[in-house]
């Protein structure tokens, strides 16, 4: 029964082994951290987009909610940063629960409404009248609990959690029921699937991953502003990485992120417009010629992608 999980677990173990060893050979920890961050976000987005077809353009809303949830817990309630990260995840789930009604909207309408929701959340957090709680637009300072190594391994933990979730989705009946909802809600519910419940759970899990990631990022960065953790670039990058890699598998988003984020790091940072132009063109080409991403090339050749 558990044997079907083996390929997915193999991929996860390989990633973990690499990320545990690499810091000893490669000193740019910050690059590795950001890579893990986007890997986790890509898997988190995969949970909702890959398995239910809802494209969350406002995914960064959960990321920001996580960063702020954790920061508020750490600065106001004096909770240890590690538990702060978990609280960040929970904060994102709470936002997710508030936004559940958006799942009634279909396709592009959902995408835009979700984008609007993330922007609204950003403006609420950044509003100076909430300065006592969120520090308003003036930013969060966590330098007193700054710990690069601890937050690095916390992020690795979040990544492992996200990958395990997707592995579960990929191989379980629950994942199958989500794929069914994505194909046809009526047919799925006539097979006995509780559509509203299943997609809400997927939505909240996806939010949880983004919240944890945002919280770990906040801890690692130590000083951040609303505009940092609610930057639309977070959504955009994650979506592009996932689209490129391919959805619905554990490996697809990983491959997409590893390739594109490395590329971003080497060409994007010195001349960001080149990268923007590149991924803009890449999206157009993908939509027209390879709408299911790189992984679909293998799948068309009947190769199993974990």
């Amino acid at each position, binding site marked *: 029964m558990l044997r079907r999980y083996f390929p997915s677990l193999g991929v996860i173990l390989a990633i973990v082994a690499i990320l545990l060893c690499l810091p000893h050979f490669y000193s740019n920890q910050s690059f590795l951290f950001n890579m893990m961050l986007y890997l986790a976000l890509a898997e988190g987005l995969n949970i909702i987009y890959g398995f239910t077809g809802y494209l969350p353009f406002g995914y960064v809303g959960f990321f920001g909610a996580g960063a702020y949830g954790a920061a508020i817990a750490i600065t106001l309630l004096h909770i240890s940063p590690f538990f702060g990260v978990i609280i960040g995840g929970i904060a994102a789930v709470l936002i997710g629960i508030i936004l559940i*009604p958006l799942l009634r*909207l279909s*396709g592009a309408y959902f995408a835009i*409404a979700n984008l*609007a929701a993330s922007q609204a959340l950003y403006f609420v957090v950044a*509003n100076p009248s909430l300065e006592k709680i969120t520090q308003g637009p003036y930013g969060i300072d966590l330098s007193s609990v700054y710990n690069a190594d601890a937050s690095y391994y916390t992020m690795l933990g979040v990544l492992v959690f996200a990958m395990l979730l997707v592995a579960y989705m990929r191989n379980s009946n629950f994942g199958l029921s989500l794929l069914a909802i994505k194909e046809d809600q009526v047919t799925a519910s006539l097979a006995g699937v509780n559509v509203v419940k299943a997609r809400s759970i997927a939505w909240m899990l996806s939010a949880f991953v983004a919240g944890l990631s945002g919280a770990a990022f906040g801890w690692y960065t130590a000083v951040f502003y609303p505009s940092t953790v609610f930057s639309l670039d977070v959504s*955009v990058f994650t979506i592009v990485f996932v689209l490129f890699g391919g959805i619905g598998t554990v490996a697809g988003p990983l491959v997409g992120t590893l390739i594109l984020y490395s590329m971003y790091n080497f060409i994007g940072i010195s001349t960001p417009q080149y990268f923007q132009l590149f991924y*803009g063109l890449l999206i157009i080409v993908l939509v027209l010629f390879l*709408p299911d991403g790189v992984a679909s090339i293998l799948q068309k050749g009947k190769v199993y992608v974990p």
Partner: protein
Amino acid sequence: MNLFAYTIIAGIMYGVFFGLVGLGLNIIFGVMRMINLAHGDVIMLGSFLAYWLYELLGFNPLLVVPVAVAVFFLVGFPLYYALVPRLLRSKDPEMLSFILFFGVSQVIEAVIIFAFGNNQRSIPFNVFGSAGFDIFGQRFPIAWLVTTLVALAAFGFIYWYLQHTRMGYATRAVMANRDEAMISGIDVNRISAVVFCMGLALASIAGIFSFFIIGASYPSMGPELTTVSFAIIVLGSLGNPLGTILGGLIYGVAIMFMQSYFSSWANILPYVLLIAVMLFKPEGLIGKAARSA
């Protein structure tokens, strides 16, 4: 009281302009059932065209209008035939077009940064003369009046096109039901291509005058404008071009009131409006009757 009157009048002028901002997005949606996610970037392109012609050749923004229309018809046709028919044949045109136009928007932004850098650009308000004009004892810059008149003219044109031309009649048929229109012998692709170009041209016209209402232009202003435009057309009612003006007016007056009385919360308004309308009144404020027409 003075402030109240000013707020209302300013809100109406602001709103008419924002109707124009949403108009191009709405007619494209009406005919093609696609959301042009690069809409805000086309507005940005219009403003950069105006800026460039003003700086280089001293063009008055009004003179840029015909140039913009010509440019976007020339660009729009090949773009339509290169992208859209292929999309319509795919298994999920709505979602794929959404993502595709997102890619287009990123390309536009990157190219403009290459060409112009990422600095803010603006055309001075006094390009139409430095005199102000008075409405009910309130003084407004002349540039606002010109902008409002241009926006009204654009709505007038669309009304005339839809109601009084043969092609407009066919366009309405496509808006009502694309498949039936195709069966009844209308060249749906040609109509769509023309309307697509029209939508782009209208967006660029909004861009030309955006300096006077929105403020300075910069290459990355697109996505925010797209969201605001979408809020406006959802408010008005999706797929009903003339309804856009209602959405614009509500948005304009509301944002002016927010700025006057709750200024620090003003920027949250379009997003909250958008979500509220989508969840509670998804058919838009004009409702079904206007939509099925």
